[in-house]
């Protein structure tokens, strides 16, 4: 379809702002831009239809099953949106006097209290805008903690090779050296490897539990103890919290610092890649290093910067309106609904795993937590049909593919996370389509490489896109 620039017609416009009611100011020429600003010239109707057409070429959670592993694509409740659109939140300037923002501060304090109870932490900052941003923040807390004690030798962060890619990338941004340790085939930490890796240079360990193969690491207490005994701290990657939210707490597993993805576990929408929110909770020993300001007092509330704060990781207080959505969700579910979300997320994953195990190999047999990883290596060997082919095949039946080729320790991986908000009927349909694709892979493997057939476009040439990047529209006249 046409780009918005190609639809642009000279002279079409909207009338949005009033005429100037004061003398018009002008600037000397040397301050003004020379290059003409070229933006589309369209009527409101034309813009509206353009985006409606784009929406029609976009697949959201509301369009169908979205079992994207590690991403927790659960339903995004409407009441959250209504709450976040209240003028008493949207029209509040971040630098208003404290007396005029008590509602915002109360909301942040309440969200902190509830999420600290859920994670077993003592304090929390909402400044990080996303999970990776939270990882970076949490690692800086660890760094500040060691340096504050005068221990400058702890430069290494241990990360299992099954970890999310953000973990090593965040450790690197925080100035640490990454020590990758092997995981077992079940994604669980190899205790011997961990014991060998820790030492006086260990700043900490980053871990997600359940791990990226979808299993709860039973040795968790021993793992966190090994790190603590070596003088390091334990960082919990909250990406997979939906499996155990309300069931077990990172703080009770021996973790000292944790980030949450409010856009995963706490139902806020993903928006095509953001905005999310990645609050960081920590045990009391790290609280003095948190980014400032934090909310203090219990009404009236005030903003204060912790004594040895690492500084700010973004302007103001974080993606506040996303926190409002998550708060509405937590209040709705409450103490019964929160663990129920985890229970049904886990039930649904196990149901799909059990059913699909009849036709597909699993990276790890048996029960799983909120997600499971299929291994299509054997299928590929026999038929030439890859995980990618099966994933693309799902698109023709209105199903979003699972996460592909992750975790890296599983060859030809498809990682499936149905979440608690999918119905059995929907999951049965997904299972049926998976089976159909398996049969077809055996019967006519060549045809599978062509899928999808019904989407807006067929498979796209990613190699050319990267080799000869075309990253913006250029009219022939430019």
């Amino acid at each position, binding site marked *: 379809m046409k780009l918005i620039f190609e639809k642009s017609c000279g002279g079409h416009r909207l009338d949005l702002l009033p005429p100037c009611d*004061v003398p018009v100011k002008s600037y000397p020429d040397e301050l003004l831009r020379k290059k003409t600003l070229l933006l589309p010239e369209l009527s409101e109707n034309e813009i509206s239809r353009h985006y409606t057409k784009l929406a029609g070429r976009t697949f959201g959670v509301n369009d169908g099953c979205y079992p994207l592993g590690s991403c927790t694509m659960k339903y995004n409740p409407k009441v959250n949106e209504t709450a976040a659109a209240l003028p008493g939140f949207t029209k509040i300037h971040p630098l208003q006097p404290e007396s005029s923002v008590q509602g915002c501060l109360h909301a942040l304090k309440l969200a902190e209290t509830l999420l600290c109870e859920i994670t077993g932490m003592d304090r929390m900052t909402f400044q990080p805008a996303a999970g990776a941003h939270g990882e970076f923040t949490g690692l800086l807390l660890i760094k500040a903690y060691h340096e504050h004690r005068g221990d400058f030798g702890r430069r290494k962060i241990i990360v299992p090779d099954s970890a999310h890619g953000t973990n090593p990338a965040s450790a690197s941004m*925080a100035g640490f050296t990454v020590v990758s340790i092997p995981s077992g085939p079940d994604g669980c930490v190899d205790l011997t490897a961990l014991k060998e890796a820790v030492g006086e240079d260990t700043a900490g360990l980053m871990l997600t539990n359940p791990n990226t193969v979808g299993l709860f690491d039973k040795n968790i207490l021993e793992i966190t103890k090994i790190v603590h005994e070596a003088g390091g701290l334990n960082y919990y990657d909250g990406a997979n919290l939906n499996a155990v939210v309300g069931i077990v707490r990172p703080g009770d597993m021996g973790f000292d610092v944790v980030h949450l993805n409010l856009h995963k576990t706490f139902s806020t929408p993903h928006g095509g890649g953001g905005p999310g929110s990645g609050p960081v909770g920590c045990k009391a020993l790290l609280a003095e290093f948190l980014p400032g300001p934090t909310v203090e007092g219990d009404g009236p509330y005030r903003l204060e910067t912790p004594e040895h704060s690492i500084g700010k990781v973004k302007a103001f207080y974080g993606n506040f309106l996303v926190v409002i959505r998550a708060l509405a969700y937590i209040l709705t579910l409450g103490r019964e609904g929160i663990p129920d979300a985890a229970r049904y997320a886990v039930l649904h994953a196990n149901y799909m795993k059990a059913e699909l195990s009849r036709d597909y190999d699993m990276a790890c047999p048996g029960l799983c937590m909120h997600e499971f990883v299929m291994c299509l290596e054997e299928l590929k060997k026999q038929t030439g049909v890859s995980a990618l082919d099966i994933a693309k095949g799902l698109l023709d039946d209105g199903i979003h593919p699972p996460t592909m080729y992750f975790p890296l320790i599983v060859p030809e991986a498809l990682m499936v996370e149905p979440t608690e908000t999918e119905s059995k009927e929907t999951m049965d349909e997904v299972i049926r389509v998976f089976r159909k694709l398996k049969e077809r892979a055996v019967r006519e493997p060549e045809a599978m490489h062509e899928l999808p057939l019904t989407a807006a476009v067929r498979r796209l040439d990613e190699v050319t896109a990267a080799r000869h990047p075309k990253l913006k529209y250029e009219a022939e006249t430019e």
Partner: protein
Amino acid sequence: MGSYIATSVQEREEMLASVGVGSLDELFADIPSEVRKKGKWDLPPGRSEMEVLAYMERLASQNQVFRSVFRGAGAYDHYIPQIVKSVVSKEEFLTTYTPYQAEVSQGVLQSIFEYQTMICRLTGMDASNASVYDGASAAAEAAAMCRDRKRNQVLVSATAHPDTIRTIRTYCFGNGMEFLLVPEKDGMTDIEFAAAYSNAQTACLYVQQPNYYGLIEDAGTLGAAVHQAGGKYIMGINPIAAAILKTPRECGADIAVGDGQPLGMPLGYGGPYLGFMACTADLTRKLPGRIAGETVDAKGRRGYVLTLQAREQHIRREKASSNICSNQALCAMTMAVYMAAMGAEGMAQAASLCASKAAYLRNGLKEAGFLPVYGSRPFFHEFVTTSPIPAGEVEKQLEKVGILGGLPLAEDRILWCCTEKNSREDMDELTGLLKKMTERGGGL
């Protein structure tokens, strides 16, 4: 209690049977009992939708919505066209994930491609990413892009927004880059200092335009100073001002960043906003985060994909250009729809309204005894005045009558801001009130 689970008891039993376990709790058998929380969870009982909404409304009502806002300092109260709200609340855009599956994400990918084009046109740069968290983190990410083996020092102008300065400093604490603050001189970046301290170790210089005090910096000269020493030049710009002011490219910038909030995002107590980032062609492969690119499908049709992914964390892990994964995609769409709705003419009109009103207010305030501090310098829509009465007192008195006054910078300094939303009538009211206050030496 509220719930979004779509499974009946009967369906639950069917599924448990299929799995081969007797109860939901059995699914969690792998979790050792000694890890379980002892005692009850201190969480409130679940509530109905009606109760939750009423509660949230009560929280919102504990905030004061000002009828008239004269405060900016990094968050600006601009008019948001209705089409913007309508487009970005479409469920497809709201609920979709990062567009990894290009075949069913052409809509969102094309919108990112269009956004990138608009950012390039606004800044004059060659390549834009799909957004980062906000203007402050964009500045910090930009500084990290400029590092190489020999150049490890970041120069940051003291006239940048304090939160931007703090954020860059925090990122430097992380990645080990050396942070050096270039002092201000009469409200502007000290050019002589910047030139004197730019050397073979300098990775980059960061300057905000217009700066924190609303002044228009001599951006070209500053760029030349750091370039002379071989460092890169980063400009943080206001996107409304950018419609009329010299583009970062025309000022010699290698990277242009800024906060997109003024273009369609509500104040929202500080977020979500978005950071935009654009650079010259030679730096493209150092950009952090998602980038959409044009390509063709198997049938030769034009399409879009996330591209240059070899820079990113999910491929490169610890060697990635940044750890960023989630960005502010929906905010980027907001900004793009805003620019499409306003058009170049509307953007320039907004900029002109802001500048004209600020000039008008500054004159009015002068008459009320609030004198401009940097009188002769060109400024955009913010400016600093003296305050004949304690600045905190001015703020408090105005708060009482529903006006959010300028931001107190010190006991006798206030940073004011105007946008197209401030009518002449509102400004006359403000100056009238301040005149009265000055005459009485305080209260209203």
